[in-house]
């Protein structure tokens, strides 16, 4: 059973990672939000799976929270933000789509190389997904670096947080609920702060392209 579960865990983590890669391939902000929603749902499902196989009741709570907060609430808020700014697409990213995709592939390979020692130490059946979680962290960082719109960057940040959560769930087979709660609160705070910033940027420059921020120099 463990054998099948480890396959499913890796497949699920691949799904979570692929939702992150969609950010590089699609151009419309609503589709980014959809990708984020599905990523969070998959993550919640994976967490529930780990809770079942690891027989850790607390993880069910974590799964439920991920589903509620990241699968429902945050996507709602993001959608409202997009509607408010009438921003609909990520145009002219700093790195073009095809190159971004290839770079993300290389980043994932890098994650594989980097996660080799962790994998060698871990014994959990889910260790196969660790490099993918690390890869998601790298890819999200790359999204934040290479995209222009502030909302894209916020979504990148949220996906980064998903990556960290995935890494925690898979690598250590679940973390204490209290730690997970702390991370959640951090993410929520970060999200709210960034939301305020995005609104401010929009009020000041009437756009959410972060390019314009270099005008502040003068």
């Amino acid at each position, binding site marked *: 059973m463990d*054998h099948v579960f480890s396959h499913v865990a890796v497949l699920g983590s691949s799904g979570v990672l692929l939702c992150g890669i969609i950010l590089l391939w699609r151009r419309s902000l609503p589709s980014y939000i959809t990708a984020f929603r599905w990523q969070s749902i998959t993550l919640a499902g994976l967490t529930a799976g780990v809770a079942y196989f690891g027989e850790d009741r607390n993880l069910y709570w974590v799964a439920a929270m991920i589903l509620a907060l990241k699968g429902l609430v945050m996507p709602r808020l993001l959608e409202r933000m997009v509607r408010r700014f009438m921003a609909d697409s990520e145009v002219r990213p700093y790195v073009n789509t095809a190159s971004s995709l290839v770079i993300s592939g290389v980043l994932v390979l890098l994650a594989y190389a980097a996660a080799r020692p962790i994998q060698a130490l871990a014994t959990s059946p889910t260790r196969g997904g660790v490099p993918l979680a690390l890869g998601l962290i790298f890819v999200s960082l790359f999204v934040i670096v290479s995209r222009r719109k502030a909302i894209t960057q916020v979504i990148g940040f949220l996906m980064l947080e998903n990556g960290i959560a995935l890494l925690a769930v898979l690598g250590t087979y679940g973390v204490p609920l209290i730690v997970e709660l702390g991370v959640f609160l951090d993410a929520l705070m970060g999200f709210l702060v960034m939301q305020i910033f995005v609104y401010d940027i929009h009020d000041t420059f009437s756009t959410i392209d972060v390019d314009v921020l270099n005008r502040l120099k003068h």
Partner: protein
Amino acid sequence: MFRGPGVAIEIAQSLLALMLAPALVGLVRWIKARLQSRQGAPVWMPYAQLRRLFRKQVVVSPHASWVFHVAPFVVFGATLVVSLLVPIAVTPLPFNDVADLFTLVYLLMLATVFLALGGLDPGSAFGGMGSSREMTIAALSEPAVALAILSLAMVSGSTNLGEIAARTVADPAAALSPGYALAFVSLFIVMLAETGRLPVDNPSTHLELTMIHEAMVLEYSGPYLALLEWASWLKFFVFCVLASNLFVPWGLSTSLEPGALAVALATTLIKLVVLAAAVAVLETRVAKLRLFRVPELLAVSFVLGLLAAASSFALR
């Protein structure tokens, strides 16, 4: 491996593929039509089309050279050789010792190159456009295919189709492994690109500026056009068989026992129908991509291939 009868079975299954290929395309067209609330042409329409074309005369451009006449035969012949390779009902077959997946991919490339040359030969602007686009897509899909093959080879220890299929038949759970699943998606995207399906190329378009495959065969007529069309249908059939029998080889026979063969043939046909339905649904759902979005789609396929290769060597 089953020397004498093996060769006979090999040739028989290749001819079977040749015979069934038009029906598969007809089926996709029919399902698509039904999904779009149209009556739809009957499934055997492509056979009638071939029959009609083989009886018609060939119109040759005064600018065309010997390449124009050679190309349809090479395209058809190379695709037919490829159909000898794929396991339709039984594996491994004698031809398995002769060629592997890389050979298969390069044989298809041989067909593509001649198709593109045939498109260029009559000096038509459309032919040049089609050739240029076709080669662009073919070139860019190559890395994704190679990585998908790589991940299959990592699991089974060989690039020969017989070994890959035999390995999955012996261990059906392997089909669930992430390496396989990701490689399947990667290869599915490439299949859509290589066989000219939506969202890469619209097989039913006749709008000159958007077509790729149709543009290359624009100057062909009569038996030549029949050969080219048939070859492209056969290519689609071969890709579908590959997708179903390499990744989900359940039911594939490993002996020449008639009962097992019949079961294998039946399961393959069911898998093909399912795949045809999937393609039809997909073609109804998605719009054609802009030409310059296609490389990005292929880059997605490349990343999936990388992921597949990485997860298969991580899980070894």
